[in-house]
């Protein structure tokens, strides 16, 4: 059994807002759902599968009711920012098994307007929460050890932000549109050593949605055909504290699973959407996915290698989470959307990858330095 070629992304929509004090979270979910359904050329009544994660207010059942859906397949898998990359794989499984034929996946929220609800605690809470764990210092600990083991430098990490900013200048909706230099990143305030402010992603309100369907229905619609040909998922955590190694992520398992299913290798990839909660997130994922050897990520990302039209691996041509958008602190959805834009030929003309027929959308969710999940999706233009 495989999901290879069994599901097509027929509709995409990224909300243009980055600050939405005048809208409710449920409303944003509805707006992105409407956008993706219209992009596909479908109507709401066509939707028979629905996927959402922890950002949906009240969870899946209130969301289905608010949207007025009538679905026969539901999935509320929540793995933080990569939830939607997992939903895409699960939607393909459901479609392949005949459990639904047109699936809707939504993400939306407003961390810029106000605080998000607290995360629920696991069995580890008494043994961790008192120590002031935050997103920043959890990723900071990964970067610190990566530098120690492999000689990775802050300058190399900064190149990732520089590349994202080069792309964001062409995105009218990007939260940060100014092109920055390596020096700008290094001179920005230290947040949690060794991560500077410009090593961090933006905090934005907004959201995005996808419509995923069967090959037959996709062919009956008007959009360029983009299909999922491989997906892998995995989780990683301290696991009792044995052999702790924060220099790699669950991407070392999700990546090979996706590439194997797709029957392609990293060198075949024309465009890469890589989750960029922090610069270190990108560097570790590129190594874990096999775009370079472990420990050589610093050299790989330096000197503009991730800039479209300049380097060998164009990445996050929308400006990514580092510059454009990181709705609800969950970057997986926008990774898929920009990969689909590239495959459709709908990216900004200055950044559109020529003959872009194979792309990867990959992300992690949770905290890279603690417990996290990863999902890798390989997408192909037919």
């Amino acid at each position: 059994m495989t999901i290879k070629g069994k599901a097509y992304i027929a509709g995409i929509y990224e909300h243009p807002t980055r600050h939405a004090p005048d809208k409710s979270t449920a409303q944003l979910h509805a707006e992105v759902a409407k956008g993706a359904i219209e992009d596909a050329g479908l109507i709401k009544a066509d939707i028979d599968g629905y996927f959402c994660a922890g950002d949906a207010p009240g969870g899946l059942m209130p969301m289905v009711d608010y949207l007025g859906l009538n679905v026969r397949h539901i999935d509320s898998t929540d793995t933080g920012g990569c939830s939607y990359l997992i939903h895409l794989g699960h939607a393909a499984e459901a479609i392949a098994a005949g459990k639904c034929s047109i699936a809707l996946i939504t993400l939306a929220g407003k961390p810029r307007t106000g605080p998000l609800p607290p995360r629920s605690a696991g069995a580890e809470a008494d043994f961790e929460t008192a120590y002031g764990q935050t997103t920043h210092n959890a990723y900071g600990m990964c970067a610190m050890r990566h530098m120690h083991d492999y000689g990775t430098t802050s300058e190399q990490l900064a190149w990732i932000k520089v590349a994202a900013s080069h792309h964001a200048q062409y995105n009218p909706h990007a939260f940060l549109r100014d092109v920055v230099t390596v020096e700008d990143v290094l001179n920005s305030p230290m947040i949690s050593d060794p991560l500077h402010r410009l090593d961090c992603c933006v905090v934005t309100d907004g959201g995005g949605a996808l419509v995923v369907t069967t090959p037959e229905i996709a062919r009956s619609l008007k959009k360029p055909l983009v299909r999922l040909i491989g997906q892998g998922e995995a989780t990683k955590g301290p696991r009792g504290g044995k052999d702790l190694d924060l220099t790699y992520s669950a991407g070392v398992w999700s990546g090979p699973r996706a590439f194997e299913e797709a029957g392609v290798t990293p060198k075949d990839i024309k465009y890469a959407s890589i989750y960029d909660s922090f610069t270190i997130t990108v560097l570790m994922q590129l190594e874990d996915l096999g775009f370079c050897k472990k420990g050589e990520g610093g050299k790989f990302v330096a000197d503009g290698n991730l800039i479209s039209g300049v380097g060998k691996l164009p990445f996050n041509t929308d400006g990514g989470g580092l510059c454009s958008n990181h709705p609800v602190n969950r970057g997986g959805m926008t990774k898929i959307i920009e990969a689909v834009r590239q495959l459709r030929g709908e990216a900004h003309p200055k950044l559109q990858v020529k003959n872009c027929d194979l792309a990867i959308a990959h992300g992690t969710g949770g905290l890279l330095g603690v417990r996290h999940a990863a999902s890798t999706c390989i997408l192909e233009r037919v």
Partner: protein
Amino acid sequence: MTEIKKYPAPIVNVETAPFWEAAKKGKFLIKRCTACGEPHYFPRSICPFCFSDKTVWEESSGEATVYTFSLMRKSPSGPFAIAYVTLKEGPSLQTNIVDCDIDTIRIGQKVKVVFKPTDGAPLPFFTPV
């Protein structure tokens, strides 16, 4: 002026109560599986490696080395050092490095356990040797 940082009291449950009872006596416990011999942290009833229920409490030496750390500069209560340390017995765990100049912390540095009071059981931290 040294301000005493207030730490939250652990919400003790039946599975982990012996750990916190020992902490009150200044003892730092880990769990070891007598079936596969592996120690682990934080403590579980069932071994996370071989899934045996033959796990026993063991007092740790409290000696460890810094695996990694990050200095949180933007904190309402002031800068602090979060870290993973690797115990002499094997398991690594998350903690803070305390009672030191945090700018001198280095990977590989030797540290030892130190307990800090809360309104409930004391919490384990680590400090340079």
